[in-house]
C-alpha cells in the first residue's frame, strides 16, 4: 500500500495539491556506497535512499509522516514508515499518537535510559542514529509546567531489536562448540494489553542543570539465548545444541543530567535494570544490572572535543555468564569546522577497554552547495574479540552523497 501512496504522491502531481492544502514536504535523497578494505574490495553496501517528511499543522493539531525507501544494488527494495503520528496540543498538555521515535537521555552513541525506541542493528552502529532508532507505535502524553515536563508513554505492542540476517557480515559472533539449532517458538511476544510496555519520565531544564528521571516496565529488546545441550552418552561430548531466543520482562529506573561549568559541559546518565537475562554456558541467567556513563564536552583550539566513560556492571555475578562482571567502554569525539562551516572533519571512536578493541570512524563532510553534502568516511575495527573487535574483517571506506530539500 505504501509504495502506491509514495508513487501517487511523487508521480501524479499530488505534491502540489498537498502543498495547497498546507502539507509541507521535505526530505532527502542519498547514495551510500561502502567498500570493504580487504584484498577483494567488495562492496559492503550500495544503498539509495529516499526519505520524506510530510507535515501538516494547525494551531493545536499536527500530523507527521516519515516514509522512507531503501533501494539496494541487488534491486531489493525496503519501504516503511519510520514515523507516522498525530499531535494535539493543549495549554499544558501534548498528546502524540502513532508510530514515533522516542529519545531520552544525555548519552551520545550509547543507550542507557534511551530504551523506548528499539534499535535497528542490521548494520551494527554505523547508520545515522535517526536510522538506528526504530519508530514504535505509542501513546505519548506530556504535561508541562514551565520548564518542568512529565511524560508518560504506553507502547501497546512490543518491538524487538532488529538484528542482521543470517549470512550478514554484521551478524554478531556467538561461539558454540557445535553448530546450533535455533528454536524460535518462544521468541514472539504476542500483542496484548498484558504485554504492553510503560515508561515515564520527569525532566526539567534550569540554568544550573538539565535533569531527567525515568522508569519503565518493558521487555528486553534483545532476546536472551537459552541453551539446551544434548550430551552423547557414549562419548560424553556435546551432541547437539538448541538455542531458544526469548524476550524477558525488565524493570528499569534511571536518571541523566547535563550541566555547564565555564567552557565544560558535564553529562551523566545511569540506569538500574531488574530482570535482565545474560547469556551463559547453559540456561541464560537473570541478574540485576547497572549501566552508567560520565561525559565531558570541551572546545579547544576550535576543536569540539567530547569524551565518555561507560561502565556496565552485573550484580551478584555468576562466572558462567559470558559477559564480564564489569564492562568498560569509552567514546571520544573530535570535530572541527572549516571554510565557513562548509567543511567538517570528525573523528569518533568507541574504545572497548575489556577486550582492547575499538571502532574508529574518521569522517569528512563537505557542503558542495546548500543542502548538498558529500561525506567521505571509514569504519575501522580494531581487536580480535569484543563488541567491536568481532568485526575486525569488516573495515570499510564509504561515501555518502546527500541532497536535502
Amino acid at each position, binding site marked *: 500500500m505504501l509504495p502506491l501512496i509514495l508513487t501517487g504522491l511523487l508521480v501524479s502531481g499530488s505534491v502540489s495539491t498537498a502543498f495547497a492544502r498546507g502539507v509541507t514536504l521535505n526530505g532527502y535523497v542519498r547514495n551510500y556506497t561502502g567498500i570493504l578494505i580487504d584484498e577483494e574490495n567488495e562492496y559492503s553496501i550500495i544503498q539509495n535512499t529516499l526519505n520524506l517528511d510530510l507535515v501538516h499543522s494547525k494551531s493545536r493539531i499536527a500530523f507527521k509522516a516519515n516514509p522512507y525507501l531503501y533501494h539496494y544494488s541487488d534491486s531489493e527494495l525496503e519501504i516503511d514508515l519510520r514515523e507516522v503520528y498525530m499531535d494535539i496540543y493543549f495549554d499544558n498538555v501534548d498528546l502524540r499518537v502513532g508510530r514515533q521515535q522516542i529519545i531520552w537521555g544525555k548519552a551520545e552513541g550509547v543507550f542507557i535510559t534511551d530504551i523506548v525506541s528499539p534499535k535497528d542493528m542490521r548494520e551494527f552502529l554505523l547508520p545515522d542514529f535517526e536510522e538506528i532508532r526504530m519508530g514504535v507505535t505509542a501513546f505519548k502524553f506530556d504535561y508541562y509546567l514551565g520548564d518542568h515536563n512529565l511524560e508518560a508513554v504506553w507502547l501497546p505492542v512490543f518491538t524487538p531489536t532488529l538484528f542482521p540476517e543470517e549470512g550478514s557480515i554484521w551478524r554478531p559472533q556467538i561461539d558454540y562448540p557445535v553448530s546450533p539449532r535455533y528454536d524460535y517458538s518462544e521468541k514472539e511476544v504476542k500483542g496484548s494489553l498484558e504485554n504492553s510496555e510503560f515508561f515515564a519520565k520527569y525532566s526539567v531544564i534550569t540554568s544550573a542543570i538539565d535533569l531527567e528521571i525515568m522508569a519503565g516496565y518493558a521487555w528486553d529488546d534483545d532476546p536472551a539465548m537459552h541453551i539446551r545441550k544434548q550430551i552423547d552418552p557414549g562419548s560424553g561430548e556435546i551432541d547437539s545444541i538448541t538455542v531458544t531466543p526469548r524476550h524477558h520482562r525488565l524493570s528499569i529506573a534511571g536518571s541523566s543530567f547535563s550541566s555547564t561549568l565555564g567552557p565544560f559541559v558535564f553529562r551523566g546518565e545511569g540506569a538500574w535494570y531488574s530482570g535482565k537475562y545474560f547469556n551463559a554456558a547453559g540456561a541464560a541467567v537473570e541478574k540485576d544490572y547497572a549501566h552508567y556513563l560520565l561525559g565531558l564536552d570541551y572546545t579547544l583550539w576550535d576543536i569540539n572535543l567530547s569524551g565518555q566513560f561507560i561502565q556496565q556492571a552485573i550484580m551478584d555475578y555468576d562466572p558462567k555468564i559470558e559477559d564480564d562482571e564489569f564492562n568498560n567502554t569509552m567514546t571520544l569525539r573530535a570535530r572541527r569546522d572549516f571554510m*565557513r562551516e562548509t567543511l567538517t572533519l570528525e573523528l569518533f571512536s568507541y574504545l572497548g577497554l575489556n577486550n582492547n578493541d575499538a571502532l574508529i570512524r574518521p569522517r569528512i563532510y563537505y557542503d558542495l552547495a546548500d543542502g548538498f553534502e558529500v561525506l567521505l568516511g571509514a569504519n575501522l575495527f580494531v581487536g580480535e574479540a569484543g563488541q567491536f573487535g568481532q568485526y575486525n574483517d569488516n573495515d570499510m571506506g564509504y561515501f555518502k552523497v546527500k541532497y536535502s530539500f
Partner: protein
Amino acid sequence: MKRKAVFTGLFIILLALPGLSYGLDDPAGLEIIKKVYNRPVGEDQEGLLTMTLINSRGDTRVRKIRQFLKDFGKEEKKIMFFISPADVRDTSFMNWSYDEKGRDDDQWIYLPALKRVKRISSDSKSDYFMGSDFTYDDLGDRHPYEDKHKLLREEEMGGEDCYVVESIPREEEYIYSRTVTWIIKNKWIGLKKEFYDEDGEHLKTLKVEQYKKIKDYWIITHSQMHNVQKDHTTDMLLEDLEVDIGISDNKFTERMMKRGVR
C-alpha cells in the same frame, strides 16, 4: 521600560555593544555607550532573519531563521528556529542571558536528527555563527565591563551627526584588539563599526544599511559585515518584525524547541 540594546537580538546588538566600562578614565565615552546599551527596544520581538553569506567570488549561501526574543526582567531569552538550508531545517537554538555581571549565558540546541535537546557551552563566543562573518559575541550579550571606551571625536556620517567611540577589550587574548563605532546622536544607534584583529590590522567592517522606528523603538533591520582580509561578506536582513506583541513565556522552553516554528 528601559531595555538593553542587546535584547533586540541579532541586529541592534552589533552596534549597540561596544560595551560599557565602569570607573574608566573617559566618562564621555562611557555615557554614550550607556545610552546605546540602555536604549529601549521593546519587551518582546519576533522576526525573520535572512543571512546571506557572500564569498570573494560572489557565490552566495542563504540561511533563514525565525527568531523570538523576550525580556524577563533580570534575564533575556531568545529562541531561534532554523528554516533553511534544508539540511538544518527544524534545528533550534535557545539562549538565556543574564544581567548579572560575569554570568555566562545558558544555551541549548535541538538537533532534529537526534531528536534531543543538548546543552552546550556558551564559552566559545569568538566562534563564527553558522559560517557567517559574525561571531557569537558580535551577535550576543557581550557585557559592557568587558571593554574600555573612549570618545575619539564627533563627525557626520550618512547625514547623521555621530560620536566616534573606541572600545578596547580588557581581555588580552580576545580576537579583536579594538573596535571603533560611529553612534548616531540622540538615536543611540551604532551606524558603523570597525573591528581590528589581534595584530591591530583592520579585520571587519559592519555597516547598517537600514534602521526603522517601530512603535517607539529604533531598530536596525538591515546590515552588512565585510571581512576585509578574506573579502567575504555577510548580509543580515530582518523582516516581518513585530515588537511588543505579548509573546508567551512558554515560547522559550524545551517543549517549543522540539515542536519547532509551526
